[in-house]
């Protein structure tokens, strides 16, 4: 598994996915700096830079998590590298988990890069008395957890659909749909018929909710996030990752290559 992990990192470096993502993140930091210096953001440098930076960083990280693993996996299958790897004394489970661990690490590196770039901007150009940049590690933690779930979901979708383009698109659809889930919570409590309440409840509890990981506004406006919430979020991440990866492994082990 360790070899697969290192091999994936090297492959990723060769494909320049991570390099492209880092470049984009730095470009976003520059854009955040520029937009924060516009006259209509005067006096709010830190808030605007962090707000713009975090927003676009999330978009880049989302694109990375959706596309990089799928492109990497499909390329290995198409080029036949996978057959070579699996002919060595390694199991399919190790292969998939090694890949997952490598992409999770890369996702983390990107998140740290973005956080560091935004912290640097806020420190260099913003109001140094503003404590918002010091809360950026909270964003990092939530984003990493979100990335772990998203990567597991993409692995599962790729194993179930086996279509390189459909999996990221469906992943994106699930991601954005989950932002509306809070409305279904209301439906689960207030819908007129028992059947609709059941449908809403299944939707609310069964659908992965990425909205719960979006703590940007709390980071920016100092809304306190309780320890209970963090522990709940960590448990939720573990649950989703185990379920998605478990299913992905089951599908991958039965897959005809």
């Amino acid at each position, binding site marked *: 598994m360790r070899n697969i992990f290192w091999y994936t990192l090297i492959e990723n470096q060769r494909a320049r996915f991570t390099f492209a993502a880092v470049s984009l993140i730095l470009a976003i930091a520059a854009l955040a700096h520029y937009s924060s210096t516009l006259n209509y953001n005067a006096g709010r440098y830190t808030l605007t830079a962090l707000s713009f930076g975090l927003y676009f960083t999330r978009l880049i990280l989302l694109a990375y998590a959706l596309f990089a693993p799928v492109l990497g996996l499909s390329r290995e299958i198409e080029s036949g590298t996978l057959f070579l790897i699996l002919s060595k004394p390694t199991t399919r489970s190790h292969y998939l988990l090694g890949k997952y661990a490598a992409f999770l690490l890369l996702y983390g590196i990107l998140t740290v890069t973005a956080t560091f770039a935004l912290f640097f901007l806020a420190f260099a150009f913003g109001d140094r008395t503003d404590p918002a940049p010091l809360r950026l590690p909270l964003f990092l933690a939530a984003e990493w957890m979100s990335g772990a779930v998203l990567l597991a979901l993409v692995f599962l979708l790729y194993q179930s659909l086996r279509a390189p383009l459909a999996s990221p698109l469906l992943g994106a659809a699930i991601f954005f749909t989950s932002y509306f889930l809070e409305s279904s919570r209301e439906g689960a409590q207030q819908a007129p018929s028992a059947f609709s309440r059941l449908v809403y409840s299944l939707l609310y509890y069964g659908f992965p909710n990425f909205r719960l990981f979006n703590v940007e506004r709390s980071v920016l406006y100092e809304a306190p996030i309780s320890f209970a919430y963090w522990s709940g979020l960590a448990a939720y991440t573990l649950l989703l990752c185990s379920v998605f990866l*478990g299913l992905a492994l*089951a599908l991958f082990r*039965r897959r005809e290559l």
Partner: protein
Amino acid sequence: MNPPRVGPAVVLSLTALLAGSVPLKRHLAQSAPAAVRETFNPSFALQALPLAFLNHRIAASQWLLLEAILYILKLDFPHYHLAEEDDNHHSHAHAHPHKPGNEIVAWTHGPDGRDLPLTRDQLETLQQRERELTLHMDRYLDIPYFYDLIETAALLDPENRFILAYGQSWVLNPSMAREMVRVLDTVHTHTGHWRPAFDAGWLLLFTLQEPEMAATRFQQALADPAAPAFVRDLLARTFLTVQKYEMAVQFLLAQLHAATDHDMATRLERQLAWTMDLLALNRAARAYHTRHGHPIASLEDLVRDGLLRAVPEDKMGQGYAWDPERQEVFSQTLFNVPTAKEESPSQEKTIRSSSRCR
């Protein structure tokens, strides 16, 4: 080892997902910060693309603001600045600077970004277009749409004062002022902050000349404990403008009772005394009218008739005077002294007599 069967694995996973999700999501819903618990607002999503992606209010707000700015820039409003005296001597760009009617009277921006000189005729054409756009902007733009953008942008990012200020900077005619008041009212309802209500009151008082409506907005602004002292002053003055002297006195008395700061109490006492003087003067003027069947010609009539012992000293304005048009006594300030052109001879006489009195 045989690979697992997919069907049971799926059933098992989904059961585990639901069984774990129910308590976890309940726990998360209870402990989540308000920003995470907030229900997604689809009406914002339809207007602002970034919000549709990640419920990102600031980015969405700036997106809408940019849309509003680009929309209003479509008008191509004329830009020019008047020329200095030296411009005609130093300009080499102009062919005959000294020829009558051909002098440089202003400058505008050319298509290449350079300054272009304008003759008197050209300036008049530009100013004519400016007047047309100012007065009839609704012929060229969908004004409610522009203010809808401003409203949504301001609601998404209430801390950004530029958005409302930008909307107000484009208030060029009464219909735009009304739209802006609508926006400010909505923002005040959502935020409870004094500033939008105060700005709405300001527009109603000075642009739309509706002091009674302005007074309600200033009262709303005062409901916010963070409202500064000048809101209270402006409200008292607005009451005076609408001749609600009794109301102004009551309002100031209530403020005086609530005042904890010594300076504020002194200031309120001064303002109260001044308002009570105006109240007494106006009551006396009404009594004079009832007694004689015609209004006073000057404030001295009140003294001569025994209704007042003397005309009081105006401690906040520049002297009390009688306004025959509005049939009321008012305090002259820099803002309400009629200009020489507008002054009627009788009014001029009244003001002078009042000054003599002092």
